[in-house]
């Protein structure tokens, strides 16, 4: 009986945690319009979240583009389809790797910094001070960061895919010697703006919501100790990554299933 009671208690705690997170999310949504009015705050956060992530996103995108070109070429050449290299790299990036890898990198770079920042602000009583000054910390501190994350992610993912394709072009056309004209024209014929590019952007926006929310929530709920903050940043990366990968499966099934 004790084991069942313990299991029951554990389940209730998990449910309570999810409920708490859901209410937090709704609370954030409710104060979003306010931060739209104070867009200057969002801009400052976009600089911290977006601009500062540019280097790693661009570097990773280029590297992934290189590697994809090399690996896919090896396989495609056995089917006599080496000319399709551009198309395959494009679809791989725009539909999947662009949004997903960007989200994972974002969780690691921007997500952890958000969690640590909010956690330390909470530990230093800055959020309590704001509350006692009759200023809602969710509207002033959390919502601008939330919005900045949602806006930055699609831009970063698009840049990842774009520079990945350019990297594949450098390897495929520059290094291996495939035909340059075909590289682009086969892509233009095979990639659909609405089905592939737009869906990829929608995916990255959803991932932006997930990663930013998880980061902010973990920071806000952390214990005000050094261990607490360290643990929270780890949780941010793990939870964001799992949620992104899970959501990616659902979105891919929704968007790219053959009708």
């Amino acid at each position, binding site marked *: 009986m004790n084991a069942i009671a313990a299991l029951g208690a554990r389940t209730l705690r998990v449910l309570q945690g999810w409920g708490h997170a859901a209410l937090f999310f709704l609370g954030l949504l409710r104060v979003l319009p306010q931060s739209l009015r104070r867009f*200057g705050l969002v*801009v*400052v956060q*976009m*600089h911290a979240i*977006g*601009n500062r992530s*540019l280097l790693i996103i661009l570097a990773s995108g280029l590297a992934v583009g290189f590697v994809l070109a090399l690996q896919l070429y090896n396989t495609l050449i056995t089917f006599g389809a080496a000319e399709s290299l*551009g198309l395959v790299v*494009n679809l791989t990036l*725009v539909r999947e790797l662009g949004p997903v890898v960007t989200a994972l990198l974002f969780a690691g770079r921007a997500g952890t910094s958000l969690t640590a920042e909010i956690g330390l602000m909470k530990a230093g009583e800055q959020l309590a001070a704001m509350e006692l000054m009759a200023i809602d910390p969710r509207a002033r501190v959390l919502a601008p960061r939330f919005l900045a994350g949602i806006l*930055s992610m*699609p*831009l*970063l993912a*698009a*840049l990842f*895919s*774009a*520079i990945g*394709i350019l990297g594949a072009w450098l390897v495929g056309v520059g290094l291996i010697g495939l035909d340059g004209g075909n590289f*682009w024209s086969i*892509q*233009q*014929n*095979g*990639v*659909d*703006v609405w*089905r*592939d*590019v737009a869906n990829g*952007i929608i995916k990255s926006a959803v991932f932006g919501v997930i990663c930013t929310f998880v980061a902010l929530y973990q920071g806000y709920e952390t214990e005000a100790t050094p261990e607490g903050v360290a643990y929270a940043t780890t949780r941010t990366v793990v939870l964001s990554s799992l949620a992104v990968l899970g959501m990616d499966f659902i979105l891919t099934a929704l968007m790219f299933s053959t*009708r």
Partner: protein
Amino acid sequence: MSKRSIEILVGLFVLLGLAGIVFLALKAANLTTLSNGETYPLVARFDNIGGLKARAPVRSAGVVVGRITGISLDPKTFQGVVSLEIKRGFDFPKDTSAKILTAGLLGDQYVGLEPGGDTANLAPGDTIKQTQSAVVLENLIGQFLFNKAAEAGSGSASGADAGGKKP
């Protein structure tokens, strides 16, 4: 870092990101080949549309002249009804035929238009009268086997005949 420089940097970031999106849409996808002008609709009916999908291209002489916008089933005639949008400026004679063809050997299917010789052109909303359905592999194999069987049968029959006729 001053507020002004932060805003400039973020503006650059947004610009860069949008440029990336535009690059993906234009250079790496089919945005420019989509009808950015006006189109007019046509209808074609097929006994079997095969693997034709919506948004597949409509080509004439291999050149893309339009898109498939819808596929449905006529409940009375049980024919497949395909809606096409053709770019304005491309007018086809009334006796144009529409065939469902495959790009390459194993590629996607599209609708090919072969113009006839009629002096009058198809008007918007017209139905293309002559259509050829998609080639379905099973039917092809079945036909091949049937032909083979018929050949063997008539061969033995003609052989028997020939045998019979020989003195």
